């Protein structure tokens, strides 16, 4: 099966052994939310081993900072070890690496709120569940986040309703 670019990017990350969680718009779309999104957002574990793995992957997919693409600046270990967001452009499209989300929530904090999803016939990744994505966006409260909330909430309601119907 021909992989989409974002599935190919996530597959490379997963097969490298990197520890990450898919969050944000693509995570919501994969769970059924009909919203348009363009970049892959992942929260990553900041252990030293994981930063090394991630750095290798980023180099292999030609990751550069998106803000000044003409400079072709590549992320390094110091960038990955920071606490901010790295907005990158790769050969597979935009990829955002987040050390934390919301009020400083880390990879470890988010793990209990994940579900595993297949992204190819054989590759599973951790995806932040839709209810927690909604909670994060409610917490962030920017105009952009608020704009998408009604669609996410209704999607979550429909999923629960369908599960209830199926179980009932």
């Amino acid at each position, binding site marked *: 099966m021909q992989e989409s670019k974002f599935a190919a990017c996530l597959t490379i990350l997963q097969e490298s052994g990197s520890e990450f969680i898919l969050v944000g718009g693509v995570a919501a779309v*994969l769970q059924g939310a009909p919203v348009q999104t363009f*970049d892959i957002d992942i929260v990553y574990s900041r252990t030293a081993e994981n930063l090394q793995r991630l750095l290798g992957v980023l180099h292999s997919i030609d990751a550069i900072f998106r803000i000044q*693409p003409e400079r072709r600046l590549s992320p390094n270990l110091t960038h990955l070890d920071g606490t901010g967001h790295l907005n990158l452009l790769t050969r597979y499209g935009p990829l955002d690496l987040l050390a934390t989300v919301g009020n400083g929530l880390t990879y470890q904090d988010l793990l209990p709120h994940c579900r595993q999803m297949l992204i190819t016939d054989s590759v599973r990744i951790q995806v932040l569940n839709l209810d927690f994505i909604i909670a994060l966006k409610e917490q962030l409260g920017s105009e952009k986040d608020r704009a998408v909330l009604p669609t996410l909430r209704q999607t979550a309601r429909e999923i629960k309703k369908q599960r209830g119907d199926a179980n009932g």
Partner: protein
Amino acid sequence: MRADEVENQSARASDYSPDGVDLSLIRWFISLTPAERLAFLEDQVSGVMKIRALNAGE
């Protein structure tokens, strides 16, 4: 500006508008041709449908 200063500037260069919109993403998408934009969207939609089908029933 020194190279390391440029790199550090880029590292915190999450360029968001006050209402939370990622401006670097918009600039990247604008930089594509209309055909490239459409191809990106088609690839993404196709990929999403495949992954949803793989996870149907879970």
